[in-house]
């Protein structure tokens, strides 16, 4: 991290009448008057910053204002810039969506959950909250209890539902394993537009973490349950944020163990994904063999942590399980055989003509759109953006390992597939390196203290991309805990990827970002654009989808 860029940011902030709150090793906290936020965001964006997320915070207890924190990341410098704007309860805040398109979702979320009045989003439908949620209840405000349940008028709600339903697939559709709702507007077999509605299972984990029910010590276990596949990423990211905020120095051995487990998680997640893709493409043998190769990795995770998934070994200030010599040797042996098997099988896998044919040139995400939407992870790396938190913002023990970041410029499904294939090999090599270098020492700090009202941003590279946690510390538990899962940043890109693609490729494309919604119900509608309505299609309208 260079001090030059910090000077530059300081100068710009002062020029725009803002103030620098604090500067830590990796983050600059600033506050900008709301009228100048657009200029500042534009300046940051043009100097290479990616939008990470934004978080609405109810600060009425502290400063009688509602605040919005924009979190930018200067990838090349490894520096986070947190910009705060604030206003009184009904005061209008400007939106920066016309400067950075990727900000739309998190601004809408702040509007829905904290009740910020952000200009430019008045007409947009609710993003997170359901339609039947009462108008003036904002769940993330401090005066709303965590177990608040509004009175829902189901009858009224069912009347408001659109009467005309298109062609619903589902609600039990075996192709989607999590709740999501896509409306694909098709012309013949070609998709012309997409509408997405998610957040069917918004569980209010952030609110729960801020409530009396949890404390700093128990939240890692809650965070681990944000995602079923990359749970350790979330708990690591949470503890990293708290450790940053409180200035806790974690023993090196603990950092190594965390990095090793994060990579194990990446391997199993990528193998799982490759298996799912094989299944989607009708290559069930590929599915079975991929998951067969994955199984030893799961058993290895169980050996090292005590659990196949939701490892549950992250605590603030360290980890709970050590890797001894016996486990280390066993891990190296397992990794060697996994690499062998994977190498042999992936060779067959990417030679299947249908797999190559169906992934090449489908679901293309151009580089400039990927940049504007600030997409993360393999989705970004498949579109030629060299973004990887492990390299850009080195955390835990990644600075000790040498590894490559696979980047493909095609931006199609094959590119995203190959990125993941390469990453499996890289991850195996990272674990081997870290296991060899594993330093001696304790695995957790004895005691720590967490001061109040400290802020921190932490980012961890999940299998799907960059996972961001933003924390404002409070008494016994975070005052505000904002989680941004990687898929959150990637879904808006689906619209670009699905447009003008064949209907048959749509599902593969949706899966190619490795979406991680979070469980239960889903409906998929196919609507005809030509008839310009969503009515149930008459007998012969349906015909034309099959035979053109």
């Amino acid at each position: 991290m260079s001090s030059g860029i910090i000077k530059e940011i300081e100068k710009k902030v002062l020029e725009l009448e803002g103030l620098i709150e604090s500067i830590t090793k990796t983050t600059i906290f600033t506050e900008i008057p709301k009228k100048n936020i657009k200029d500042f965001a534009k300046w940051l964006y043009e100097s290479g910053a990616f939008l990470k997320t934004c978080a609405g915070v109810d600060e009425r207890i502290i400063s009688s204002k509602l605040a919005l924190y924009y979190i930018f990341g200067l990838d090349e410098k490894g520096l986070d810039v947190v910009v705060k704007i604030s206003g009184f309860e009904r005061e209008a805040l400007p939106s920066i969506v016309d400067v950075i398109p990727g900000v739309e979702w998190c601004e809408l979320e702040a509007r829905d959950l904290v009740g910020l009045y952000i200009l430019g989003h008045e007409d947009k439908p609710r993003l997170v909250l359901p339609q039947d949620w009462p108008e003036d209840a904002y769940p993330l405000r401090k005066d709303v209890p965590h177990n608040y349940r509004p009175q829902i008028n189901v009858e009224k709600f069912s009347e408001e539902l659109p009467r005309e339903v298109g062609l619903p697939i589902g609600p039990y559709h075996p192709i989607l394993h999590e709740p999501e709702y896509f409306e694909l507007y098709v012309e013949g077999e070609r998709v012309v537009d997409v509408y997405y509605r998610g957040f069917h299972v918004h569980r209010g984990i952030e609110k729960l973490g801020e409530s009396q029910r949890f404390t700093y010590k128990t939240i890692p276990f809650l965070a681990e349950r944000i995602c079923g596949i990359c749970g350790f990423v979330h708990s690591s990211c949470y503890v990293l944020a708290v450790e940053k905020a409180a200035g806790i120095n974690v023993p090196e051995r603990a950092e190594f163990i965390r990095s090793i487990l994060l990579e194990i998680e990446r391997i199993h997640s990528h193998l799982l994904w490759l298996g799912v893709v094989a299944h989607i493409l009708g290559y069930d043998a590929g599915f079975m063999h991929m998951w067969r190769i994955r199984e030893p990795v799961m058993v290895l995770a169980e050996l090292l942590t005590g659990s196949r998934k939701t490892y549950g070994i992250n605590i603030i200030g360290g980890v709970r399980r050590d890797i001894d010599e016996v486990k280390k040797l066993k891990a190296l042996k397992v990794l060697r055989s996994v690499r062998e098997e994977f190498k042999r099988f992936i060779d067959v896998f990417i030679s299947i003509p249908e797999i190559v044919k169906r992934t090449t040139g489908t679901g293309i995400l151009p580089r400039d759109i990927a940049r504007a939407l600030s997409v993360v992870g393999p989705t970004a790396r498949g579109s030629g953006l060299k973004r990887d938190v492990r390299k850009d913002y080195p955390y835990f023990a990644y600075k000790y390992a040498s590894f490559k970041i696979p980047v493909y410029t095609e931006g199609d499904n094959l590119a995203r597939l190959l990125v993941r294939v390469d990453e499996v090999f890289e991850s195996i090599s990272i674990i081997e390196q870290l296991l060899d270098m594993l330093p001696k020492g304790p695995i957790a700090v004895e005691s720590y203290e967490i001061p109040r009202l400290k802020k921190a941003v932490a980012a961890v590279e999940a299998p799907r991309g960059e996972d961001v946690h933003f924390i404002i510390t409070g008494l016994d538990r975070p005052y505000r805990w904002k989680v941004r899962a990687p898929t959150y940043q990637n879904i808006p890109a689906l619209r670009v990827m699905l447009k003008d693609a064949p209907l048959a490729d749509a599902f593969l494309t949706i899966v190619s970002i490795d979406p991680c919604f979070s469980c239960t119900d889903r409906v998929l509608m196919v609507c005809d654009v030509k008839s310009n309505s969503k009515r149930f299609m008459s007998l012969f309208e349906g015909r034309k989808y099959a035979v053109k």
Partner: protein
Amino acid sequence: MQLSRVIKPVKLLLIALKTGRVSREKYPLGPPLITDSFRGAISIDPVKCRGCGACVLICPPNALTLRFEGEKAILEYFKGRCIFCGMCADVCPVQAITVTREFELAAVEVEDLKEEIVHVMSKCIMCGRPFETITQLKYVKELKLITEKYMNMCPECRSKRVAKLFAMKPGEIFEIK
């Protein structure tokens, strides 16, 4: 070269031949495939347990709860909620909790998933209200040199007593009713 690319999918058969079958034929028979470090359900040693409630405080999903029924303090372990993190075993001051490797926990009734450890509470010698488990008090006695009388008083009565002692005139005798 072109031919080898066409032939490659067939290599799957070789891989399959080399691997053989990996799925288990008769699952419940034979030993489970878990490693030594596997964390399963916990078991609480009722002899060692003192009912201090440290595990209840740390348990993330509230699988361990402590409730008071008359003269009894009941520590309940509900396996249905347990996430098998083993934090309770880490914090237990007397190592009464051990993490077992048990994972086949299915039961017909919800009640079968619950385990209860009943502690008898000691009654306050002043007001007669049950206030602390007997085992816990024994432990306190081992730790600190305090009189039986003082130990068997509930915290409220203790503070009342102190207040009374202050208000006493010289020569007066404090009596426990």
